């Protein structure tokens, strides 16, 4: 039984699931707000985004996303996808099917990450659509006169994705551990708020829940390093907690 088969089955399970709709709605929320702001207050915003309109637009969008919405989205997605099995009592059917524990564990984790990347993709798409649509209605914006800085956008996406790796592994582990979805969401939310409060602390780069915001701040300051310190930390947390979560599942007394 190979990994792609397990992955296909996992992806099929997310069809019309809450996790899927969360990705779509989560990705559409901020672009929709920007659309409304630009549309109804062109006097204020047309000037604000006039110099390098795409860069300002994306920076504003990702700022709104990275502070709170994105970590929250990761926390929810990591919880909703394992919840599919808990809620439906299907863990036992999954563990009694001919799949290795590794395939079960990693196909689900990979599905979570595909869902996150899907949300990233939709977010960028909706941000572009919202700007273009506004510009069609209101000529005081100049999005259509400028080209999108794809390399900047790609860098922003890549570094932000790296910054959420740590959170995703911790939350996935918590979500596998607790049958009740309130527990991982509550713990995640508490840690997220704590890290936002501690933002000025000199060791904040060690706290995974602050990583997306730190990445955003670094990009805003035009830092050019491929990966910042906290991003390496994020990768470290990712590897550690993924291994821990897998070992936890493997050595559990009772499955499903």
């Amino acid at each position: 039984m190979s990994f792609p088969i397990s992955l296909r089955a996992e992806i099929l399970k997310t069809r019309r699931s809450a996790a899927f709709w969360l990705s779509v709605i989560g990705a559409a929320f901020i672009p929709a707000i920007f659309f409304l702001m630009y549309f109804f207050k062109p006097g204020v915003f047309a000037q604000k985004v006039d110099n390098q309109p795409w860069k300002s637009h994306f920076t504003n969008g990702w700022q709104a996303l990275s502070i709170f919405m994105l970590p929250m989205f990761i926390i929810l997605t990591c919880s909703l996808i394992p919840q599919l099995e808990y809620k439906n009592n299907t863990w036992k059917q999954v563990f009694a099917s001919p799949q290795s524990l590794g395939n079960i564990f990693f196909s689900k984790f990979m599905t979570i990450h595909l869902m996150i990347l899907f949300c990233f993709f939709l977010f960028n798409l909706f941000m572009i659509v919202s700007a273009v649509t506004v510009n069609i209605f209101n000529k005081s914006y100049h999005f259509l006169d400028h080209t999108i800085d794809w390399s900047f956008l790609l860098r922003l996406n890549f570094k932000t994705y790296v910054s959420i790796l740590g959170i995703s592994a911790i939350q996935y582990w918590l979500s596998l551990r607790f049958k009740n979805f309130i527990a991982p969401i509550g713990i995640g939310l508490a840690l997220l708020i704590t890290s936002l409060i501690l933002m000025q602390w000199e060791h904040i780069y060690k706290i995974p829940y602050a990583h997306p915001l730190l990445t955003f701040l670094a990009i805003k300051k035009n830092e050019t390093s491929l990966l910042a310190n906290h991003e390496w930390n994020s990768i470290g947390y990712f590897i550690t907690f993924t291994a821990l979560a897998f070992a936890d599942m493997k050595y559990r007394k009772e499955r499903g």
Partner: protein
Amino acid sequence: MPKRSLHSNKMNAPVIQTRDLDFSFSAAGKTLDNVNLVVPQGSIYGFLGPNGAGKTTTLRLLLGLLRMQKGGIEIFGKNFSQHRIDILKRTGSLIEQPSLYLHLTAKENLEIFRIIYGCSKSRIPDVLRVVGLENTGRKKAKQFSLGMKQRLSIAIALLHQPELLILDEPTNGLDPNGIIETRELIKKLNKEHNTTILVSSHILNEVERMATHVGIIHKGKMLFQGTLNELQHMKTGQAALEIETNDNTKAIQLLRQQFSAKQQHEKIILPLGDKQQTAAINRLLVQHGIDVYALHPQQNDLEQLFIDITSNDI
């Protein structure tokens, strides 16, 4: 407690064999105590016991849903822990309440498992027809009645045409019609595809109507294991006299002249007559120089258990 392990049809190699299976959830007590389950190939094995006897725990161990603590499990003649995936490929299961993705349709639920088991697309309409759910269309599983959910779960278990089916209380929560249908389906699968079926139940009546073999578990211990005939024989309350001597072979030869005596393990068993007859048997043995160590009516622990199980009807 005497354990009556009656050896059934030896021609068939067992599909499932457990060896001294022990399991405890906490230090407080054993949920399973020395369970030796033998499910012969091609049988419908009714696994009977009151609620909380250890049926589900045993079945979960057989599927690897619980980590084995002590003992051994062999399925299809292979060690379970070493050949987990091979064994699960050939096994279909339904454990406790239905496990379905409620936000998906019947077909989508089956499609997930079709991919995992790698069977052909034509199996989906096939199994839907078998369980009578071919017309549910776009209806999601959450809109199904309990009976329909149970049937869809059975369809999932049948999807890859398993050689072994493990069904935990498949008729639980079904209406009388559903119970009959499920029973007929189990019999049909067994007859037409020679599927070995291990089905648990807490209702004696139900097991008697479909099983070829029966195992009875109570408080984590196997009390009886054998064919349905052997069970029925036992149930009719045929009281027996149990004798232990220093020379069983000689004693049996002697007793067979008058009684239908047989040897079971280290004991001689014969039908229980009145007190005078018991005294006469003792005298006969002693007069022929045989030392009698024990002579007493056989304990029948099953009787009370049958009452427990039968009174627990539906």
